């Protein structure tokens, strides 16, 4: 059983790389793989994935703001029968970053993509209904999860948190004071 699982993961990774040559696959653990593709190949990769694993279901979609108008979008997909989690990653950029929608392949992702749009401003091409879901009308187009959306900094002070700081350099021998 264990043996055939390993071949399945390897086969899948080989097949994805064969169909979409720009895809970079990485095995994270025995039950997880990560696939990184350029934004224009997402659709092709997703279609290959669905053909290979028909029972794979969409778990969630997330965005990450990498600042300077660069974003990462990731889809998390889970196959019950093969016990395999696939994390599909891509990078998009520009003031209106655009990527193909996968919500027709996995309808369960329709709301998750809509949420990513309203919080990050990532346009999903081919999405049936990109409209506000959780936010109120006054936050339309403000994209609150972007790092440029400034929150009330008082709350940060309240949390008593210092910003990340680099590691201290090793202590240099101070010029010794001669007394």
């Amino acid at each position, binding site marked *: 059983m264990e043996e055939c699982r390993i071949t399945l993961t390897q086969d899948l990774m080989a097949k994805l790389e064969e169909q979409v040559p720009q895809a970079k696959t990485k095995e994270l653990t025995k039950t997880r793989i990560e696939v990184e593709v350029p934004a224009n190949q997402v659709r092709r990769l997703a279609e290959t994935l669905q053909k290979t694993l028909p029972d794979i279901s969409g*778990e969630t979609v997330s965005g*990450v703001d990498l600042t300077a108008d660069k974003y990462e979008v990731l889809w*998390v997909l889970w196959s*019950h029968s093969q016990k395999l*989690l696939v994390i599909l990653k891509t990078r998009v950029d520009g003031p209106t970053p655009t990527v193909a929608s996968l919500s027709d392949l996995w309808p369960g992702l*329709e709301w*998750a993509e809509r949420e990513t749009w309203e919080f990050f401003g990532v346009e999903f091409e081919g999405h049936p209904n990109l409209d506000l879901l*959780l936010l109120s009308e006054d936050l339309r187009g403000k994209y609150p999860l972007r790092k440029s959306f400034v929150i009330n900094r008082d709350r940060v002070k309240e949390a008593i948190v210092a910003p990340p700081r680099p*590691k201290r350099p090793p202590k240099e021998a101070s010029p010794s004071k001669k007394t």
Partner: protein
Amino acid sequence: MVSMEETTIWYGPQHPAIHGFALQVKMVGDYVVEVNPRVGMFHRSAEKVLEFRTFQQGPLIFERLSMFEAMAQPLPFVMAIEQIADVEVPERVQYIRTIVAELARIHTLIFWLGTFGAELGQFYTLMWPLRDREYILDIFEELTGSRHTPSYHVPGGVRWDFSDKIIKKIRKNLEYIQKRVPTYWRIFPGSPSFKLRTQGIGLLSREDAIRLGISGPNLKGADDRSDLRKDDPYLVYDTLDFEVPTGPDGDALSRMVARIREIETSLDLVLNQLLPNLPDGDFRVEKFPARLPAGEAYARIEGVRGILGAYVRVEEDRSQMPYRVKIRTPSFNHMYGFKHIIESQETRFADIVAIYGSLDLYVAEVDR
């Protein structure tokens, strides 16, 4: 002649059975043709808040997403932080975490049984489960000092150790609940008036459920054996022996059957497999790093309602706060599935609340 015009009405947000969201219902006669759930009234922007709270404060935000599941909800976040920090927790911690997560499952499901009965207009069923649930909350109160927001999970362990007194109390209270389970079978699926409202209502096939990303007892109610405790074991579930509880047909009644079986399974796991094998040792790692290295992790557990996940990313070395946290909650997908279930079959207005109740939607978890 009855006019066949389409009517639009609002169901919620102030309707007592709809806890904080609204449904725009389009009907012909009393047959529903379209529903549009409007969510977002509980949106508290938890994901943004987590970006300016330290990772030690993070679990407290998580347990406020779903009040009932407070003992289980922070687990994915805590596990993801431990993965990033590359810290292995002691075996006793894993056992304690598994036990409290199962206790959370039992009391959430018991409470759900009561509210589901009340939503269907049978108020006599509300108070019995509510009273039984108190026995679990008593355990939480004695363990942490708080019934609902216990702040129990911390990165690297748990806040308080199990004493002998607590273990005795868990055993005594769960044995009481075990005696009550036959009553649940009798007053819920065994009652003809319940069957009338739930049998054949809100059918959801296994294929549709997988397509819509539905998980947990709603998927198991469609006779599917997917359960993260078996499929992708975390904590100590790989050492436990249990059958995945399922329901037969995928209707509202089957989902209820799956949930009552789930209570039985969890009781059996805690009483017969977890408590007797609880190892000695530390209840926390000695020193958890105060600052995190750069990295990312996606951890998930089988929550009460389905797959609970947390994606955590730390961008800079030695930072105290995560750069980005994505919270995956099952109710978010179930709310989308709710629309599909109603529209895919002949549903009458009175069935909406039966379908809503049987899916165990928790709106605060949808909105985050």
